[in-house]
């Protein structure tokens, strides 16, 4: 319990520090100006969201292999937290795009793939609500989660290669892409902050799921008497 409070406090401090760094330490971007400062928040959230989905995938695989409820708790926590992060990505993206591109939404590769990713995990959570029995729910949703995660690179590749070509990613985007070193360190600090926040939220959600299982168990016991 206290561990989670400390983690939460650290997460909040880091996120505030990251915002401070994004506004006051990072240099102004030449062409885009102030609006570029969304980048630190937006892309860091995207990375943390993908990590959360990866945790979900890990939970799915481990559940199928080991059949331990713990892993199902991890999976559902990862999916829900990842969904929260991708929601942030999908909201902050258009806010950035509007002044820069002049439109809120465009069917750009990364935007669209993130949206499909978001849809896939919405379906994942939806599937979970539609299966009553806990073991069955865990198994079926794990298998769907595995299929969904395998689909992600395919979605990304398909949209990237066959829909309009767009600017290369600035981070790890190969040659010619590059950030100012201060920008880079601010970005990686933001990514770290977002990951700590993500882990904190996953831990909270995990505790909730664990408690839910205990409550369900107890409820059955009470009913049996």
């Amino acid at each position: 319990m206290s561990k989670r409070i400390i983690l939460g406090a650290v997460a909040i401090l880091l996120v505030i520090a990251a915002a401070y760094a994004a506004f006051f330490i990072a240099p102004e971007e030449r062409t885009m100006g102030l609006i570029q400062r969304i980048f630190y928040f937006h892309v860091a959230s995207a990375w943390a969201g993908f990590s959360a989905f990866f945790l979900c995938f890990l939970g799915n695989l481990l559940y199928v292999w080991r059949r331990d409820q713990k892993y199902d708790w991890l999976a559902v926590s990862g999916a829900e937290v990842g969904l929260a992060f991708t929601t942030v990505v999908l909201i902050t993206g258009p806010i950035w795009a509007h002044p820069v591109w002049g439109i809120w939404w465009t069917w750009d590769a990364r935007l669209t793939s993130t949206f499909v990713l978001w849809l896939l995990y919405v379906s994942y959570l939806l599937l979970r609500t539609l299966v009553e029995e806990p073991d069955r729910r865990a198994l079926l949703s794990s298998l769907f989660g595995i299929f969904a995660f395998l689909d992600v690179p395919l979605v990304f590749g398909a949209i990237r290669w066959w829909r309009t070509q767009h600017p290369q990613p600035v981070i790890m985007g190969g040659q010619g892409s590059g950030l100012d070193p201060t920008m880079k360190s601010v970005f990686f600090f933001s990514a770290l902050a977002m990951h700590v926040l993500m882990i904190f939220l996953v831990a909270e959600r995990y505790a909730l799921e664990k408690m839910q299982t205990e409550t369900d168990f107890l409820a059955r016991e009470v009913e049996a008497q």
Partner: protein
Amino acid sequence: MKNLDSVFAAYVVGWGVFFVFYLTIAKRTSNLRAELDRLKSSLPRAK
């Protein structure tokens, strides 16, 4: 300071989403805790 409102909006909305998400977790947790207490108190009586 062009686009300050957009940047501001993005950060506020982003933090807002996380905050609301955390609130839903906290709310669900407190509901469950109440349910758990109710069940626990009904269990020894039944025995």
